[in-house]
């Protein structure tokens, strides 16, 4: 592991050098919020962002992704990855990407995701400003960061750049990096620790307590009570870094061919688990309380074995996206922990 230092004034030339090699996707301002978008100019980059509307998974798993194209002769695969850099990913979002990697590799390998993932160099960055609902300091905080290639931590005067892979090491020559001093490295450690400690929201339990107590609350009236105002809109799913469900649809074009594509889907919507039946449809999660519970169960308990912890990174996007203000995992999980 190597640590380098990049001064504030050397950041823009470094980003320009990255952009000259491949597209760079990074946080940029969009009115009052931030989004991950392909940089048009280096000075659009906003490493001081609090959070983005959608998580960075969009880069590997776009909201709508072509799977195959077909015509009268046959079909062809649409896997066609493009080398790119994903810059400015917060540590908790890096954990979210690592979780998605597990889902897409598990048992049946999905190269529609993984090919994009492999073609992407990830440069993380420290949290400089907290999103008002962030609780990553108490959700999977001990989970090691993996899957990224370089990490930039903001300190006075510039950034400490930690290199984690060969792909990350190859970026060093693109910028005016110097060797980081012990003081700079210590300042970076302190900044990242402080970011975790200063989260505006906090969970009152360990990962183990969350796993056990949320699972034990399956039959609790809490789900009915909390979901009473749920619109079943799926906004909490759509903004979630670890939600990966999708629908698959076909579409014709005017030339006699067409495409099969997938698009993000949401288990909170009423039709998600519905199947056609002779006497009308059969819905395996008919009640909104069942769907609401299903999402929390998946985040808090069901995926623990695969991931070694909850499938939540504490970004707080769902809390902010929910129109009815009932999706905040801190409120829900703390309530369950208190009651049990």
């Amino acid at each position, binding site marked *: 592991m190597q640590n380098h230092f990049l001064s504030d004034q050397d950041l823009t030339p470094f980003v320009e050098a990255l952009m000259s090699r491949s597209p760079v996707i990074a946080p940029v301002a969009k009115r009052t919020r931030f989004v991950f978008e392909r940089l048009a100019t280096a000075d659009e980059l906003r490493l001081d962002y609090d959070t983005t509307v959608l998580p960075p998974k969009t880069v590997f798993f776009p909201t709508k992704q072509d799977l195959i194209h077909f015509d009268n002769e046959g079909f062809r*695969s649409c896997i066609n990855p493009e080398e790119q850099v994903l810059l400015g990913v917060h540590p908790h979002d890096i954990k979210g990407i690592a979780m998605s990697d597990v889902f897409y590799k598990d048992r049946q390998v999905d190269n529609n995701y993984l090919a994009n993932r492999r073609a992407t160099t990830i440069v993380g960055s420290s949290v400089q400003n907290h999103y008002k609902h962030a609780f990553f300091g108490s959700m999977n905080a001990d989970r090691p960061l993996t899957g990224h290639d370089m990490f930039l931590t903001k300190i006075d005067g510039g950034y400490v750049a930690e290199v984690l892979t060969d792909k990350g090491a190859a970026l060093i020559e693109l910028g005016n990096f110097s060797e980081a001093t012990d003081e700079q490295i210590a300042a970076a450690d302190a900044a990242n620790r402080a970011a975790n400690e200063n989260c505006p929201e906090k969970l009152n339990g360990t990962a183990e307590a969350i796993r056990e107590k949320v699972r034990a609350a399956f039959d609790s009236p809490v789900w009915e009570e909390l979901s009473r105002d749920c619109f079943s809109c799926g906004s909490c799913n759509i903004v979630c870094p670890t939600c990966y469900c999708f629908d698959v649809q076909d579409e014709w074009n005017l030339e006699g061919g067409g495409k099969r594509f997938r698009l993000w889907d949401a288990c909170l919507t009423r039709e*998600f*688990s519905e199947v056609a039946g002779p006497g009308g449809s*059969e819905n395996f999660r008919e009640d909104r309380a069942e769907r609401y519970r299903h999402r929390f169960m998946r985040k808090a*308990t069901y995926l623990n074995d695969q991931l070694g912890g909850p499938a939540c990174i504490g970004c707080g996007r769902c809390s902010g996206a929910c129109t009815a203000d009932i999706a905040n995992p801190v409120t829900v999980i703390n309530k369950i922990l208190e009651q049990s």
Partner: protein
Amino acid sequence: MSGNCDNDTNIFAPMLVEIVDAKMVTATEKHFTLKLANGDRFDYQPGQIVEAGRFGYGEIPLGLSSSPTNGNTFDVVVRKIGKVSSALVDLDAGDRMTIRGPYGNGFPVDELKGKDILIVAGGIGLCPVRSMIQYILHHRDAFGKFTLFFGARTPSDLLFEEDLEAWRCTDCMHYLETVDTPDDAWDGNVGVITTLFPKADEIGPDTRVIICGPPVMYKFVIAELDKLGISRSNVFVDLERRMKCGIGKCGHCQINDKYVCLDGPVFRFSEIEALEEAI
């Protein structure tokens, strides 16, 4: 347009199949006999599923309804009920459709060998278990006493009429059938499928049981099996869900933490009875 090397690594790339035979078997169900367009043999286990599709319409999960011991062809039955199934039912012999698979866990054939078998099938639940019925009949000496219960809503909903005719006459199995609502010509049993239990020859406590039918059916059948002293670890349920992708990714078929398309569709009942969303 085919031939792109990525087709080999794209899990959504289907195989083209030729429709060898297609016939409507009820007002809404069509029975297809298929073979791979490239001439290869399609290998699978009884009880596994495929995603059957038609370009421009989409894919649906179907249980394979013939035994893999049938040779180079294999069967599926499609009920015309939604957009994709209607597009598939519009196809005929000589046309092509696509499949992906086989996916999931089928019936535990080796574990079932040497045992008495009871299969309980309701409605089009007969289609996926027909793969196991045929398998047993093709290896008759490998299994003990074989009993099949089949229930349909009306006599016109009875599928696989030729099979039923043969099963009614054969000594190879004890076949009992019932309908919920009879017509004038029906002189058989009337009532839900559990009304067949008192009419069957003795079903011993060591019998292995397979159940497939409409969601409402399972708990009533399992209550009867409990009375017979059959262990829930010897009961296998074949479940239906919205298995949109077939590969454990899309999420629609989840039962708590299980994916029906990967962990099922055949489950040992003792392994899922604690899952609140299973039956």
